[in-house]
């Protein structure tokens, strides 16, 4: 009986993992369309159809990639590697339920590292083309990563000190139980992560050097990185509605609806913030990331100071 129950739990974990991965893949371009739609609405235009990114991807997938004369097999490998790392990162961040098959591997530093790797690989492909704009974009991406990474480590320090673990699934579960105390520290650390998303850390702007089916992969990877970051911020800040390990189908449906609502609200908030600031210009990004770093320091200090008080 015990063995049977365990098999059922394992099967449910694998099923949840498959549903989650498929959901992230399917939803990523839709969220991109949503973001553009919100931005367009705020600017007084009608946005694109929600299915438009998928149509674009399908159109691109039918095209021959055109390569630069200087291209080597690396140019064909890089989009695949970029997509593979992004999709693994997306699979590791729980969306609608906990207790998925890969929950044990979903370390915060691993997820952040996979997302960074996905960006670096595109930058390599851009440098391969040897053009001026691609080189400039690669340098910009590297500079931005240098500014973002200290904040990320500080946020991980804060969450690790709050929850005693850096495993994302455990952190989500602890937050769901209200055990990440003090709450203010968690909010500050999440704010630092959200500010990084706002400053465009998931975007590379390096898609000019790939084309055709490869461009489809790179664009899908970029959408996945954005959605993963949103999902991570939403889960760390407000995991309400997420199904707990061993939850049934009903809990999953509730979790799916809650996750959709959270992503919708987060996208709307990001779009509103961008519209009200007029976006963050590339030259102002270091300032935004500097503020994120200070938020990270504050979060870590708050955790450590509250530990002294306790």
């Amino acid at each position, binding site marked *: 009986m015990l063995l049977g129950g365990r098999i059922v739990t394992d099967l449910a974990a694998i099923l949840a993992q498959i549903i989650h991965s498929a959901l992230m893949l399917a939803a990523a371009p839709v969220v991109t369309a949503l973001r553009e739609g919100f931005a367009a609405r705020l600017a007084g235009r009608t946005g694109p159809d929600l299915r438009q990114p998928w149509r674009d991807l399908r159109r691109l997938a039918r095209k021959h990639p055109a390569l630069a004369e200087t291209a080597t097999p690396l140019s064909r490998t890089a989009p695949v590697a970029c997509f593979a790392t992004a999709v*693994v990162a997306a699979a590791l961040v729980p969306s609608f339920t906990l207790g998925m098959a890969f929950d044990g591997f979903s370390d915060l*530093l691993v997820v952040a590292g996979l997302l960074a790797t996905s960006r670096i690989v595109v930058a390599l492909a851009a440098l391969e083309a040897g053009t001026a704009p691609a080189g400039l974009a690669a340098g910009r991406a590297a500079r931005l990563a240098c500014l973002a990474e200290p904040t990320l480590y500080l946020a991980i*320090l804060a969450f690790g000190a709050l929850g005693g673990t850096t495993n994302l699934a455990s952190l989500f579960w602890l937050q769901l139980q209200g055990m990440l105390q003090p709450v203010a520290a968690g909010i500050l650390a999440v704010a630092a992560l959200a500010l990084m998303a706002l400053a465009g850390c998931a975007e590379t702007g390096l898609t000019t050097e790939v084309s055709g089916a490869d461009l489809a992969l790179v664009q899908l990877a970029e959408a996945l990185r954005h959605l993963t970051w949103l999902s991570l911020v939403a889960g760390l800040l407000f995991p309400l509605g997420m199904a707990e390990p061993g939850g049934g189908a009903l809990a999953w449906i509730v979790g799916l609806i809650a996750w959709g609502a959270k992503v919708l609200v987060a996208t709307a908030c990001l779009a509103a913030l961008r519209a009200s600031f007029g976006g963050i210009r590339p030259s102002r990004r270091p300032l935004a990331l500097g503020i994120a770093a200070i938020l990270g320091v504050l979060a870590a200090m708050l955790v450590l100071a509250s530990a002294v008080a306790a």
Partner: protein
Amino acid sequence: MSAELLALLVAAITALLGLGTLAAVWPRQCVRIVWGAAIVASFAAMIAMLDVLLAEPRSTAGLPLALAGEPLRLAIDPLAALFAALLFAAGAATLAFVAATEKAPAATAIPVCLGLLGIAVLGQNGFTQGLGLAFAGTAIWLSGPSDRSGAVQLGLGLLAAAAIFAAPGVPPQARIWAVLIGPGALAGLMPLHRWTAPAHCASTHAAALLSGATVPAALYVMLRVLLPSHGMVPPAWWGLPLSLAGAAAAVIGGLDAVWAPDLETALAAGTMRQTGLATLGIGVALTASGEDLPAVATMALAAVLLLAVLQAMGGTLLALACGAIRDGAGSRRLERLGGVVRRMPVTTVCLLAGLTGLATVPASAGFAAAWLLLHAFLGLPHAGSLPAQLLRCALVAGLGLASALGSAGALRMVGVACLGRPRTPRAAVADEPSRSGRIVLVALAFLATAWGVLVGPLLMLFAEAPMRVLTGSGLGPLATPLGLAVGPESPGYAALPIACLVAVAGGLVVWLRRWLGMPGATTSGPAWEDGFAAPPAWLPFGDPGTQTAGTDFAPSAMRILPLPPALVRFAAQAYKGGEKPSLCPRPTPTPSGPGPAMTRRIANLRLPPQGSAPAIILVLLAGLLILCSWAGVS
């Protein structure tokens, strides 16, 4: 058993020293035999060390060689065996590569330096260790670095450190400073890195020895001198200077690597970054053992061992690959390279593998080390004064910055030197090293990658016994078959599953693309330059000026420090950003031409120039004085 092994090792070390001397004076035809023998000797030494590491729990054997009253003692235990194995592996790879690629290998310093480093690692007392390091530093210097005055200062520092380790009356507090000026300087730590960095530019083998063999040996001496294996518990404050020096070296090494104008300068800076991370690990371990947190100390020390092994594999690989690119493409300057990958695919892929291993990319060994260091910081007690906690935040931010800079430096080194268009006609006709040279590169790349992916099982296999020597207890639950974990039940970092998942996802994409019949690449043409005019006919590889030379891959120091107050601004101005000058000298014509062969050979020995004679005499005098005073004390 271990006494025989020790005798074998001493024989191997003596053979290396003798072979190096022979190679300097023998005619060219015999040099190859000498090299073969040296490779065999170092390989045998490595195998013997692995045997100790895997088979014997703890054994010490002494070799009484009286020198000035105290025996010059050699001994093996598992920790020494691990580092000696690393040393001889890196040395064997360097010897094999140089012998395979250079037509007339004249680098007689390698076997000598290897033997001396072997003495440093097998030395039982601080004096033997320091003396070995000092002579090894001198051997590297003899192989011809550009900045001889720096080498002299380094030799002095090492000798002074050896004297401090040896002298019985010196207070134990002196050890920490002696470590920073002696082995720390040799490994390239922050304030003293100017002494060693120029030697990276001298030759491929000097760079390979400095990053692959010297750094692990120096780290070993630091571990031996600082950790409580001498029966003395180090005070907790010892962790502070080490952590600060380590974090500073990691960040500044990373920045220098991103701004370096040529391959070797970037390599020297990258080595400094790795040493900095390892020193940060030693500092955290000392703090943790001072706070009586053995699990945290184990975590930090595991990171140090990981980084040492990685440096022996990856550091050697990078130095050899950079040497291959320099020799094959005719320049070390990034602005004269580019597009090397089409003519040197194997070297480029190996370089990429080595850089990935060192960078903080998931499933690489560098990532595992960063993960362990971050968790060691998490494990330190939360209670403490506000300045201490702020300092911890600063160190963690420095760790993050160093890892981002490592990725940026790796991207720049591969992207600018190997990818893109050739910037000069010479780079367009670059040549791969010989077949045996490529085999060495591929083997090192394989080892560096495997060390990252199989980090858990390999740590269990190779680091358990050394860790027992260091802390008295083994790794505990730290290493798991899948990767690393903080506690027995907590999910940790699963390197192997992550690597498998990425590989499966990539494979699925490739398979799906074939299965769906998506079109492959059939068209290729000139890259779109955003509407710039096509280059003229006399620029067959396009306008070199439109291709990035990688001068903007890191923000300037002012931007890294957010909202800088006056003090920070002052510090940032003292360390200005922007392109660094090359550390490498202009090539000087090698003395050749008519004349007796013996004269040429002596000229090729590269005796120090006239100007440095006073400095050499000073070093010798200082060494003699130290020896005499110490003999008088004991």
